[in-house]
């Protein structure tokens, strides 16, 4: 049985400002979930918190991955356990080539497991990288470019998925990977992600604003976040419904539910 990522009643603050206000969600390996919600509702905050960004303070609740409480683990340990996040805003690392970076990332994993490991041999690494780049229809010259440095918006997103493909996580969070991609790139990236999902039995949490990507990589579950909480969960139709009606009906429903007005 695969691993699961369990988020229980998660409360998170940034600079003492509460952002997440009790999030509950379970993503199992092999499942595809979509997380939607208006700007500023807390989707990236959730993703960053899962990955252990130091700016995000957990004030209540738990994150359990494969039975382990992530609270006690550093970001790199979470990554090596098989958690991955494709960044909404990938970070530029000047002077470090994509190839060099990926090889170090693989080697870091191997060494963490076995301190005597010599790391991945160059030919094996080269083959791995070229295979994955081909899958994502990326020009291999990318391997020699500095990581995200001068990459176009779409190139950055593709490079994120390349990293995902090379690192083969168990659970991946893709934060707005679709934004900035042209129509062809969207298809290629989404299909690549879908292939990985199948071949690795990967669990995925796709954060997105648009139905489009979900045509290529079909979620079993769709969740909607509003003001730091998941207020609605359903099947793929929920995304279609949103596309048509926006979020207002949810806000109204929320207000009707609890507030005094």
């Amino acid at each position, binding site marked *: 049985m695969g691993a699961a990522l369990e988020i229980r009643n998660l409360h998170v603050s940034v600079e003492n400002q509460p952002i997440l206000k009790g999030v509950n969600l379970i993503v199992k390996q092999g499942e595809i979930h979509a997380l939607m919600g208006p700007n500023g509702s807390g989707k990236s905050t959730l993703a960053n918190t899962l*990955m*252990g*960004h*130091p*700016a995000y303070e957990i004030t209540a609740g738990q994150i359990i991955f494969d039975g382990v409480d992530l609270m006690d683990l*550093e*970001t*790199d340990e*979470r*990554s*090596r356990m098989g958690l*991955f*996040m494709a*960044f909404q805003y*990938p*970070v530029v*690392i*000047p*002077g*470090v080539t994509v190839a*060099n*970076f990926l*090889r*170090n*990332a693989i*080697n*870091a*994993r191997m060494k*963490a497991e076995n301190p005597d490991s010599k*790391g*991945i041999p*160059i030919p094996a690494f080269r083959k791995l990288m070229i295979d994955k780049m081909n899958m994502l229809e990326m020009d291999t010259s990318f391997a020699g470019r*500095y990581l995200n440095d001068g990459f176009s918006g779409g190139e950055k997103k593709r490079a994120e998925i390349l*990293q995902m493909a090379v*690192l083969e996580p168990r659970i991946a969070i893709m934060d707005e990977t679709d934004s900035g991609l042209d129509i062809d790139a969207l298809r290629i990236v989404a299909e690549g992600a879908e292939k990985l999902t199948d071949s690795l039995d990967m669990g995925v949490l796709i954060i997105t604003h648009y139905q489009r990507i979900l045509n290529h990589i079909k979620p079993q579950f769709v969740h909607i976040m509003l003001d730091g909480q998941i207020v609605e969960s359903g099947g793929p139709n929920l995304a279609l419904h949103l596309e048509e009606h926006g979020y207002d009906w949810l806000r109204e429903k929320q207000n009707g539910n609890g507030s005094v007005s």
Partner: protein
Amino acid sequence: MSDAEHLEGIRETYDDEYGFHDPDTYVFKARKGLDADIVGQISEMKNEPAWMRDYRLKALEIYRSKPVPTWGPDLSGLNEDDIYFFVKPADQESRSWDDVPDTIKQTFDRLGIPEAEQKFLAGAGAQYDSEMVYHQIKKELASQGVIFKSIEEGLREHEDLFKEYFGTVIPAHDNKYAALNSAVWSGGSFIYVPPGIQIEMPLQAYFRLNTASIGQFERTIIIVDEGAFLHYVEGCTAPTYTTDSLHSGVIEIVVKRGARSRYSTIQNWSDNVYNLVTQRAMVYGDATHEWVDANLGSKVTMKYPSLYLMEPGAHGEILSIAFAGRNQIQDAGGKAVHFAPNTTSQIISKSICKDGGRSSYRGLLKVYPDAANVKSTVVCDALLLDDISESDTYPYIEIENPSVTVGHEATVSKVGDDQLFYLMSRGLNEHEANAMVVNGFLEPLTKELPMEYSIEMNRLIQLQMEGSIG
């Protein structure tokens, strides 16, 4: 541990690797402090001609007459009364490692010098405290007329040539510490490359301190004659002591018409060494000189390799890399002085500070009125690894000709939390992530360097070979 980790933790193992010292085995040690008697004693022990002794004594007066510079790092902790200005390590200089006294030879073995000599070098010299204990050059080079000797032998055996250049590139009155060196110089190399001779492998000199509270004042003269090529490499380390030591070298280089030369320094003194060095190259028509200056060690370094571009077509480059860790001040940079038209220069400085270390880029670009069509670029970048470290830039520009093209860029960046988070989210630990950012920062510079020859250089900079940082 990967090279990348070595790089970030670059001086963490200093005490084990370099900070050791040998029992005292010197054959002569002058008393502490500096006066005309000490200067006379040095001259006498070296059996010098009278003109040199007079030169020294005059330089001592110049040294006395100049105030301690206050425009840079604080030098008030440096007290000459606490310094041994001359410690003679051995009776004579050897041509074979077998003849070097055992204790000293063991130290150079441990530092990997004889091994490096065999593998990568066209010749090697080794200085221990005040004098060279070893100098040797490949036979075929010697037979082509290449001279590679200690500075003392240079004076003894090639007095005319020596006299023609000594003190001409850097006169005693150039600055206080050039004057000091001119008074008490001891050790260093004398190099002459005849016209058209291309020395493919580098010559290297290694400077080692052993005695506590010592002053080392090497003097080097390099003449690269017309159309010749030389790469000279200098490395240095010292034991870690609680008392301060002083290293104050003077390096004079003449690069004649159409010649090329490169002088690479990997300075890795212990944290108790004041390193105050003057080095300058005079570059003639269509000739090129490159300074590659890596400052990793020392307590305080003040060092601004300079280029005097004397004739049309002269070109010079300075690559300066500084690393300032805890309790270290690296005041480094470079000077390009354009005397002639159609001369070009480039200065690239990269500094890294951590644990409260301070680095400054201090540079001068000067263009004289007659120097038309000069091109010069200066790029200085600093990377701070934490909030308690600091970096400054002091670029001085004096341009007296309107036809000059100058580019100047300076950046200071900090390894950001977002960069670390991004790299760590791919499984690198914090140390590896930091190292990767540092490597990336140095990459534009390391691409330029050949570095197979030096042990410290490998530690400083990731080899460009595949597999190096994995």
